[in-house]
């Protein structure tokens, strides 16, 4: 019994345990539901999955199923980011517990019942519980926002702090987390309002199917705004998290954080005002430029730190020594690199499309344009996932050759896959339909190999973590003990501070 209790405590009461569970959930969901499309259909795996699990797949409901699947994965990824945030940013112990507890119950409920509803039958109890799960995730978001409140006295920074602060001492990094959290809540509300209208006759659709429609309803625009901004905010979230990870500070952070705050507000306002404003895209462009500049500051800082640390013992390091230092640790180098890489596979493609829309892309058939759209946001989601994996692998204490193999496999193989998808989506620029088969075969092969290798790396990592859970004094036990110690110390410090506060009040009253 104690065996189970200890593991349960680790998995559901520590950041690493909770993250491990969430990554396992995403992995299982991806492994099962990934067999229902793409090459898995060609290989007949889909039929086996459907038969084996007794799924009920009605053709007319495919789009609805996919939307629910996206939501369940998005809820889980949101939970992972929340776990990281509640651990990284100073907050009261009970706040951390209640936020983590609420979001865990929420996302697990949403995942289980959302998928049951979508793939096993339209039982409206399932749908109701799916909504309950999402509501709990939303409620956890409100609690998190309250916990992040940067105006609280105890979170203000001293004048000599190396971290960016306002004149009054406000921690602007915390402010960025806070604003991101509010933006998430507002954007989720936007989706919830349109989603609830679904029950009143709104019909399910995939955003990419609406392109080229000269008139879109306000509901359709609201959903398009919602899906874009939610993914963007998840990307912003992980950028802030990895910034915290590398202790982003100094002049670059001073520039980056105000840019990030303005960027989040601008991009969110732009994405949501798509419903009413013809020129909403201009606001989005301005807002996202601010966010991208902030991310650039992070990359410069992170890479510069790696180089400085790696060449600390060398008087005048040469170019190759600097490069060696930069590439020494793939897990630390990777997040910044993936952000740079994003410019070629997501932002660059998006900007190119916007500039050449009528000249090139609208000349192509609808299906080609659709491939680019779905491709670029799948890539963005994939990049976010790889950054999360790299950070979690570091948290898990991967060392030595395993760290190198895992890190480089994730970076190189995911980038091969994403680059191949990008070239595939842009193939009409350089090959005709009649001549495309050969290049398509190659690109598909590179994509499949790239993704498969990343999944293999993930699978090996997860199997190791599972095996470790069965060890009495496994890695998990150390992690849990360390977290408990840190939490206990934080709790003690908090109690001391509280005690001092109460004593001060008593002193004041007794005067």
């Amino acid at each position, binding site marked *: 019994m104690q065996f189970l209790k200890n593991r349960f405590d680790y998995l559901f009461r520590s950041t690493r345990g909770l993250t491990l569970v969430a990554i396992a959930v995403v992995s299982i969901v991806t492994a099962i539901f990934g067999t229902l499309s793409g090459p898995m*259909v060609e290989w007949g795996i889909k039929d086996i999955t459907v038969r084996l699990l007794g799924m009920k797949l*009605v*053709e007319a409901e495919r789009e609805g199923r996919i939307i629910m699947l996206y939501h369940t994965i998005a809820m889980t990824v949101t939970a992972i980011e929340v776990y990281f945030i509640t651990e990284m940013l100073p907050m009261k112990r009970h706040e951390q517990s209640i936020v983590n507890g609420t979001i865990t119950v929420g996302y697990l409920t949403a995942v289980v019942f959302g998928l049951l509803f979508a793939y096993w039958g339209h039982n409206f109890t399932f749908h109701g519980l799916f909504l309950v799960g999402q509501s709990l995730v939303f409620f956890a978001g409100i609690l998190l926002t309250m916990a992040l409140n940067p105006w609280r006295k105890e979170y203000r920074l001293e004048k000599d702090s190396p971290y960016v602060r306002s004149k009054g001492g406000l921690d602007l990094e915390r402010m960025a987390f806070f604003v991101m959290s509010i933006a998430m809540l507002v954007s989720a509300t936007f989706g919830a309002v349109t989603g609830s209208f679904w029950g009143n006759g709104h019909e399910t659709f995939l955003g990419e199917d609406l392109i080229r429609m*000269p008139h879109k309803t306000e509901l359709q625009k609201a959903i398009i705004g919602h899906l874009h901004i939610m993914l963007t905010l998840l990307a912003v979230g992980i950028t802030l998290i990895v910034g915290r990870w590398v202790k982003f500070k100094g002049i670059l952070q001073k520039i980056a954080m105000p840019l990030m705050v303005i960027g989040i507000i601008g991009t969110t306002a732009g994405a949501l005002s798509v419903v009413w404003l013809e020129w909403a895209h201009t606001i989005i462009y301005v807002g996202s430029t601010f966010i991208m500049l902030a991310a650039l500051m992070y990359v410069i800082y992170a890479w510069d730190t790696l180089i400085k640390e790696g060449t600390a013992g060398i008087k005048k390091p040469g170019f190759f020594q600097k490069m060696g230092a930069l590439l020494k640790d793939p897990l630390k180098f990777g997040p910044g690199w993936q952000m740079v890489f994003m410019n070629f596979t997501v932002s660059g493609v998006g900007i190119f499309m916007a500039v050449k829309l009528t000249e090139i892309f*609208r000349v192509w*058939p609808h299906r080609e344009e659709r491939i680019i759209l779905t491709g670029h946001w799948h890539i963005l989601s994939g990049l976010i996932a790889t950054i999360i994996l790299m950070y979690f692998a570091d948290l898990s204490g991967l060392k030595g050759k395993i760290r190198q193999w895992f890190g480089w496999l994730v970076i190189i193989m995911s980038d091969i896959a994403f680059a191949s998808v990008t070239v595939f989506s842009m193939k009409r620029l350089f090959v005709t339909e009649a*001549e495309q088969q*050969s290049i398509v075969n190659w690109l598909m092969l590179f994509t499949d190999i790239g993704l498969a290798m990343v999944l293999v790396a993930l699978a090996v990592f997860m199997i190791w973590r599972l095996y470790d859970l069965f060890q009495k004094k496994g890695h998990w036990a150390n992690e849990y003990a360390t977290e408990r110690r840190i939490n206990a110390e934080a709790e003690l410090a908090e109690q001391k501070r509280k005690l001092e506060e109460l004593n001060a009040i008593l002193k004041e009253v007794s005067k």
Partner: protein
Amino acid sequence: MKRTLFILTMLALTLASCGNAPSIGSITPPFIDPGIDPESWALIPAGAFPYGQHDHITEVDHDYEMMVTPVTNEQYARFLNEALAASVISVGEVEVEAGEQVWVEVGAHGFYPGDPYDGYKHEEEIKLGDKLYFPTEADGARVTFDGQTFRAIHEYSNHPVTMVTWFGANAYCEYFGWRLPSEIEWEKAARGTELVAERGHGLPFPWGTHIEGNNANYYSSFDLFEKMFGKLGNTTPVGFFNGNVYDGYETLDSASPYGLYDMAGNVWQWTGDDYPKQHYRHMRGGSFYSYEVDLRVWKFNSAGPQHYSPQVGFRCAR
């Protein structure tokens, strides 16, 4: 080091085993006759039917007929020859306009009166003038032109004609006094009127609720032609999926409720509607290069009327 070398060698072998796939134009399949007459028509009576993914019950207030199969290469070559003799079309260079691009192509071309223009954002103006019907020098065409006469490549003669622009498809139908079907007409002909599937939906596929590889020609459906030429997609003869067995390959009879063939897969089919403020022409049915989800009867593709492709054909209505 040895391990790295081993991994790299295995990777190289895997990649090398893929090889280069031939282009569509370089393949010639054997002639196969499925026994479906491409000159035949099917009657679709007036009445309501479930339209679109969400099954909106939509009234069609007239009886109409649609071709049982897409127009074949043979039929299109015949049209081009007749129209050329009657000076309805010309062959030679013609200016093609799409979006902000203008270029010159060689092919059969003829007059089109243009679409009404509203000056809407992103609206492409379709002006009156000479339009490309069928490119004679593009890769992938199965109708050849020797300077005098158009001829369908024998092995492809009963395959659906491809590489035809919307203008060329429209011209074919109008030449014989017919028209391209509207999207509503096309979908009704494909799925019929019944709400038979689970939860009261209309048919997602012309033949029923599920799709098998031998129902239709789609991407990686492992049809006879994919078996012959590897994964490379290719058109199949019209009416191929009719329950016949070809060289040991058994097809399922995949006609629509009104007896139309190839309403899912093989080639996308141009429809006749001109949607104001955009002028993209919609195509229905999915093609040999589409995943099965795009073969569902309500799915559509769209392109400017100047577009042609090895996976786009058409059929007429009257």
